[in-house]
């Protein structure tokens, strides 16, 4: 049973059904609506179609550096090696990527990627991915259960035995008995008020896995994408693709200064343009020039924007200006960024071919999540697998743009393969326990049956306030502790939520049920953020500035303790294979000339 029908879930289901497993997919929305459709820029795969110097080693190195070396070495390796085949396979299933002059899949530049690497379709690559998987998947004998929400994982002893879920349409509960479950449920951005995430992003998989005894890892790393819309208020947080900057867009403050040149950190200085003139040469295709600072990794750009706004140099609605109008001809903008053009025209009444956009950071992505084995994607619970955003490991402390869509298809497939191997080796059929099912149903229906109680919508708004205040882009000890205290209060209030109406298609009840997941996820992020006393990637501690040489050797693990309380542990991070370590640390010239990694395959 696959939970989630975004890119990872669909790819996992295709892998399962392709290996003769009886496969089902549960999704909270209709098929093809998952948040994957929002991905714009592309999927990273070192195919070398545009720049032949690209290969998996350079992609691997970029990923590790972007992730500030906290990535699981083996996952970054598998991802870089397998992404090209997964992308080409999509083409075999009907995807129509933009083409190079030679007729191959075109690839575009993106933040943190050394070479043009992102296979794309204009700025709607996610839609192309999900539609290709969907149209292929419906002919694979997979059972799709649309508008069904998973509530709890069912176990027989240690092992997975099924899923308890409910149909949103009727409110009826349904038990899916199965030998293995693959979680592909995405992150938990809805705990924050300004987010690019849709209502589905409530951390369901993270919370269900946690309750089933699985370990979570590095959940303190929550990525704030530097460029979300800031106005109008109702669309605050909606993403403005990094592709705008990849295609020449620049960031300016209210004084008209191109401020990113003031925020180039030491690590990236050797590979970043020092002057406007050099940045423009790079954009024009000069291979000796270095990249513009607007294309630094997302955490660096997000912090720079926050600093500019704090210093009083922000735009009228509290962001900064993203200007492509003065840089690229109008017809090119419309052709290369059609969705962005329409998004601003129709939602903000801004013509991006004539005026700059106003942008600011928005909670976008969970790097951390459920801890999995790199090759099989199995969690610490036998029979439970996780892939895509809900799983931890590939992206370390910060994700590069474009590495998410490729993550979905690489690890979606591996999770399917892992589930097949697990089921083949399984003896007997695990049986779900009736008392687990009845008590879970009772907890869910109490919300409807109670006479009075807390309004779930208002409780959700309070949670967002807590997370925005205490667990934002920059964090510190006392604020995190306050957030934990507030979360404890919210947990108590959540015990007595009340949703009026019946169980048939009742959004108030759905909201109340997802609060449970949001609270577990938020608590895990906050406690992990408090433990990690350093600033690395997307996790910035004002009271512990800079990366610490000590902390790179540790993961933060969260799990449910025997007493039901959340336990947080600083656990040594397994070392990488020597060859991988050498490649990740190599100078780019040494890697490309073959001085390092020449024998790596």
């Amino acid at each position, binding site marked *: 049973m696959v939970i989630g029908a975004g890119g990872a879930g669909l790819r996992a289901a295709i892998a399962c059904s392709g290996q003769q497993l009886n496969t089902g997919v549960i999704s909270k929305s209709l098929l093809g609506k998952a948040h994957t459709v929002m991905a714009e820029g592309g999927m990273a795969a070192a195919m070398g179609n545009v720049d032949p110097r690209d290969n998996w080693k350079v992609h691997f190195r970029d990923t590790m550096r972007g992730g500030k070396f906290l990535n699981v070495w083996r996952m970054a390796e598998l991802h870089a090696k397998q992404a090209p085949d997964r992308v080409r396979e999509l*083409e075999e299933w009907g995807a129509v990527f933009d083409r190079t002059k030679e007729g191959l899949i075109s690839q575009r530049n993106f933040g943190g990627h050394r070479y043009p690497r992102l296979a794309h379709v204009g700025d709607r690559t996610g839609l192309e991915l999900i539609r290709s998987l969907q149209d292929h998947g419906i002919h694979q004998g997979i059972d799709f259960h649309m508008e069904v929400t998973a509530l709890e994982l069912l176990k027989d002893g240690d092992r997975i035995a099924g899923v308890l879920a409910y149909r949103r349409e009727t409110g009826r509960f349904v038990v899916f008995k199965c030998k293995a479950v693959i979680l592909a449920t995405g992150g938990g951005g809805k705990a924050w008020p300004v987010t690019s995430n849709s209502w589905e992003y409530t951390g369901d998989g993270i919370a269900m896995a946690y309750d089933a005894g699985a370990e979570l890892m590095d959940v303190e790393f929550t990525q704030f994408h530097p460029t979300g819309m800031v106005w*109008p208020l109702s*669309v605050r947080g909606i993403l403005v693709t990094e592709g705008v900057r990849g295609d020449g867009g620049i960031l300016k403050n209210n004084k008209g200064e191109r401020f990113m040149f003031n925020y180039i950190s030491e690590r990236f200085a050797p590979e970043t343009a020092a002057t406007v003139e050099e940045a423009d040469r790079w954009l024009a295709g000069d291979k000796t020039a270095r990249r513009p600072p607007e294309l630094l990794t997302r955490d660096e750009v997000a912090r720079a924007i926050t600093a500019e706004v704090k210093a009083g140099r922000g735009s009228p609605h509290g962001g900064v200006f993203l200007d492509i109008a003065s840089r690229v001809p109008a017809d090119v903008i419309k052709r290369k960024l059609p969705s962005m053009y329409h998004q601003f025209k129709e939602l903000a009444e801004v013509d991006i071919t004539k005026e700059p956009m106003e942008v600011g950071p928005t909670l976008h992505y969970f790097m951390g999540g459920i801890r999995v084995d790199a090759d099989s994607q199995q969690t610490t619970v036998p029979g439970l697998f996780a892939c895509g955003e809900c799983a931890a490991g590939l992206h370390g402390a910060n994700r590069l743009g474009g590495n998410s869509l490729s993550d979905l298809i690489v690890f979606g497939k591996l999770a399917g393969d892992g589930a097949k191997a697990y089921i083949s080796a399984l003896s007997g059929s695990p049986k779900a326990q009736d008392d687990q099912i009845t008590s879970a149903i009772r907890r869910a229906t109490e919300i409807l049956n109670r006479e009075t109680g807390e309004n779930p919508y208002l409780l959700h708004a309070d949670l967002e306030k807590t997370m925005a205040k205490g667990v934002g882009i920059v964090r510190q000890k006392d604020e995190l502790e306050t957030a934990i205290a507030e979360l404890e209060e919210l947990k108590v209030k959540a015990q007595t939520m009340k949703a009026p109406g019946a169980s048939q298609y009742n959004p108030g009840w759905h909201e109340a049920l997802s609060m449970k997941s949001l609270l577990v996820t938020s608590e895990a992020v906050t406690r992990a953020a408090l433990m990690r006393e350093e600033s690395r990637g997307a996790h910035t501690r004002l009271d512990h500035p800079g990366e610490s040489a000590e902390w790179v050797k540790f993961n933060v693990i969260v799990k449910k303790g025997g007493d039901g309380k959340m336990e947080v542990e600083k656990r040594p991070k397994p070392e990488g294979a020597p060859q991988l370590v050498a490649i990740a640390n190599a100078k780019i010239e040494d890697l490309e000339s073959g001085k390092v990694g020449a024998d790596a395959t």
Partner: protein
Amino acid sequence: MAKRLFKVWRGNAEGGDFKEFQIDVDPGMVVLDVLHRIQAQQANDLALRWNCKAGKCGSCSMEINGKPKLACMTRMNSFTEDETITCQPLKTFPVMRDLVTDVSFNYEQNKRIPKFKPKPRDADGQYRMYQEDVDRVQEFRKCIECFLCQDVCHVLRDRDGREQKTFIGPRFMIRVASLEMHPLDTEDRIPELKKEFGSGMCNITRCCTEVCPEHIGITDNGIIPMKERVVDRFYDPVAIIGRKLFGIRKRTKSRSETGE
């Protein structure tokens, strides 16, 4: 902030009625925002679908003041200041609850279309297609499956048209077109278009094109070329004789396929 009057249809398959809501509206809001505010403040159990809030997923389709629209892309300042805003479920599909309809008809139609069947890769393991050949396919692939075109299609509005599956509908006509015009696809899709999918049922009123939030030229770029291919195959005597005598290709294909 200003108070606005909303009339929202509430009910289920058995029936229902419009309910009035007086609600505060802030500058910059879209209809979906106002419905969410109604849901949070006055009707916790108001059922509606939504996901992305940016016109990219096609979930929040409904009829607003009688027109099929995406609620997330309908700005409040597109109405006059004292205009009452009426929201009701799509008329073509059976109501489940409030603004949510049963759109499973559309998923069933998609399943009827045989899957993409690509030709073999080139010797170096690559597929080659040229941008000018895929432009027209990419236009159709912009479709976000909001089903507004299916909703407004008069063949599908007619209940018999739906139940007897006489016409697959505009969304799936362009899905077939995206396969038929795909430079790599080897399946012959023309006989099915005529016999199974009812290409002749469409009489080109262009209502579907008018409501498409992605501005896809559904009728002119998709349905009409498909109808023409059907006509060429089944009704053009010169072409039929030509094919018999000279073995002329059945399909007009692209540069990459013909190797030009």
